[in-house]
Each structure stands twice: as structure tokens, then as C-alpha cells.
């Protein structure tokens, strides 16, 4: 029965590894950013599941409820989610710019091309 106690950790580890694989083994940049997001979300699941008490409920004070789940991980994860979306937005903006400068967002295309010539309009 001890294995069931660890089940949530193992699911999180599987998700984390899938995200990790996606980041390092795929060349397309948008796919990499998706893998990064998968990774982040699996870490959130880890934290929230570590903060749960069986038989507890959402940490908002109400009538008739005695046991609450720990509110501290929720606070940390809220901050982490918003930081995650900030990172994703900046990463996607970078991907857009790279696409414009080089014409593609694949890794192997990028390593083959020389940097574009900068054309400054003469003013």
C-alpha cells in the first residue's frame, strides 16, 4: 500500500520527463516552449498535491468545515503560474523575431544559415 502513497509523485515525474524531453529533443521553438509549459505545470501539480490533506477542503473559512488544506503552497503556485505566463510571452516574442530574421523557427535551419546582412537605410 505504500506504493499508492507515492502514486501522485510518480505521475508528476512522468509528466515532468515528458516536458523535459520535449524541450531538449524537438527542434521547433514553439514546441520547445510548449514543453517548458508542460514541465512547469507538472511542478505545480507536485506542489499542490504535497499540500493537500485528505479529508480537508479548500482553504476558505466556511461554516461546518474543520480541516482545511494548507494555503501556503497555493500562494506560491499562484505566483509561479503568473511568472510562467510572463516567461512564455517573452519566449514567444523572441520566437517571432527569430522567425522574421531567419525565416524559420527550426533549430537545424538556424544553425546552417549565416546571420542576415543588416541593411541600414541611408538617411
Amino acid at each position, binding site marked *: 500500500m505504500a506504493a499508492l502513497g507515492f502514486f501522485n509523485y510518480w505521475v508528476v515525474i512522468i509528466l515532468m520527463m515528458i516536458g523535459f524531453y520535449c524541450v531538449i529533443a524537438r527542434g521547433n521553438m514553439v514546441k520547445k516552449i510548449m514543453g517548458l509549459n508542460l514541465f512547469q505545470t507538472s511542478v505545480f501539480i507536485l506542489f499542490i498535491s504535497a499540500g493537500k490533506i485528505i479529508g480537508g477542503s479548500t482553504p476558505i473559512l466556511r461554516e461546518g468545515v474543520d480541516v482545511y488544506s494548507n494555503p501556503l503552497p497555493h500562494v506560491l503556485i499562484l505566483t509561479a503560474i503568473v511568472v510562467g505566463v510572463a516567461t512564455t510571452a517573452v519566449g514567444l516574442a523572441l520566437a517571432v523575431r527569430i522567425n522574421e530574421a531567419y525565416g*524559420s523557427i527550426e533549430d537545424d535551419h538556424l544553425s546552417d544559415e549565416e546571420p542576415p546582412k543588416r541593411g541600414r537605410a541611408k538617411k
Partner: protein
Amino acid sequence: MFLVVVAVAIVRARDLFAAAMLFAIYSLLSAALFVVLDAGDVALTEAAVGAGISTILMLAVLALARRYEHPDHGHNRGHKGVALAVVIVTGAVLVYATLDMPEFGSPDNPAQVHVGPYYTEQSYPDMGVPNMVAAVLASYRSIDTLGEGFVILTAGLAVFALLSIKPTRRRRKHPGEDNDDEEQRP
């Protein structure tokens, strides 16, 4: 379990539009998981952010770039084997590490014993606010929230700095597509 299936599908999808949709499904499923794990605030945030904002931004990038992921070349196969090996080794090490971790949901977790009960018991007498998560976020840990406001502000400024210069195109003799360069705005 659905999460694992959807995650694998995201990795393998070649059509990036389908991958974005699967990503939205993944976010929604994890939000549902958060509800089951008693985290109301987090579920709301993850559903709004993951299924909404992240997906929309990825679709916006796909409108600007190509929609299909490039198939693997021959010289990439070796890379994928190494990547898979690294991933498996890391996963095995992590599984070994979790054998010492406390059981799921027990009340005498180390995470539950130190500061958690203080927040649970003291936040209403201190503040008179029923939502403990908001109380901790905005009052006990207020400086962290200020830092987070700065992070969001910086992200907005960074995206503005990256995308405010108008692009120009340039014909290039390379095989494939147009590629481009930017020039300063007059």
C-alpha cells in the same frame, strides 16, 4: 492519467495547430485536477492563464510562422537517442528520490506542520478575511506579490521592446523562404 496521454500527444503532434489545441486541453485537465486537490484559487488561475492566454499567444505565433513542424532529418536520430537516455536516467533518479517522501495527504507532512497551521488558524483573527489564500498572498507575503507585479511589468515591457519595431522584408537568394531583416523606424 489523461494528462499523460495528452502530454505525449503534444510532443508527437506535427501539426502545431493541433498541438496548441491539445495544450489547451492539458491546461484545462490540470485545472480540474487542482479542483480535486482542493485548490480553488489555483484552479481558477491555471484555467484562465493556461487555457486562455498561453494558447492564444501560441496561436498568434503560429499565424506568423509556419504551421507544421519540420520532420526529422537523418542526423537528428542520434540526438534523440541521447535525449531519451538522459530523460530516462533523470526520471529514474527522481523516482528513487521520492521513495523517502511523505505519503500523499497525511496531516503530519513536514509541509503541514510548521507555518501552515499558523496561517490556517490565525488569519481570520488577524485580518477578518475568510479567503486564507488571498490573506496570505496580500498581507503576510505582500512583498512577494509586489515582486510578482514587477515581473509582469517587466514581461510587458520586454515584449513591447521586442515587437515594437516594424519589420521589413528582404529578398534573399537562399533556398527556401523569404527571410527578413529589420530597420529602424524613422
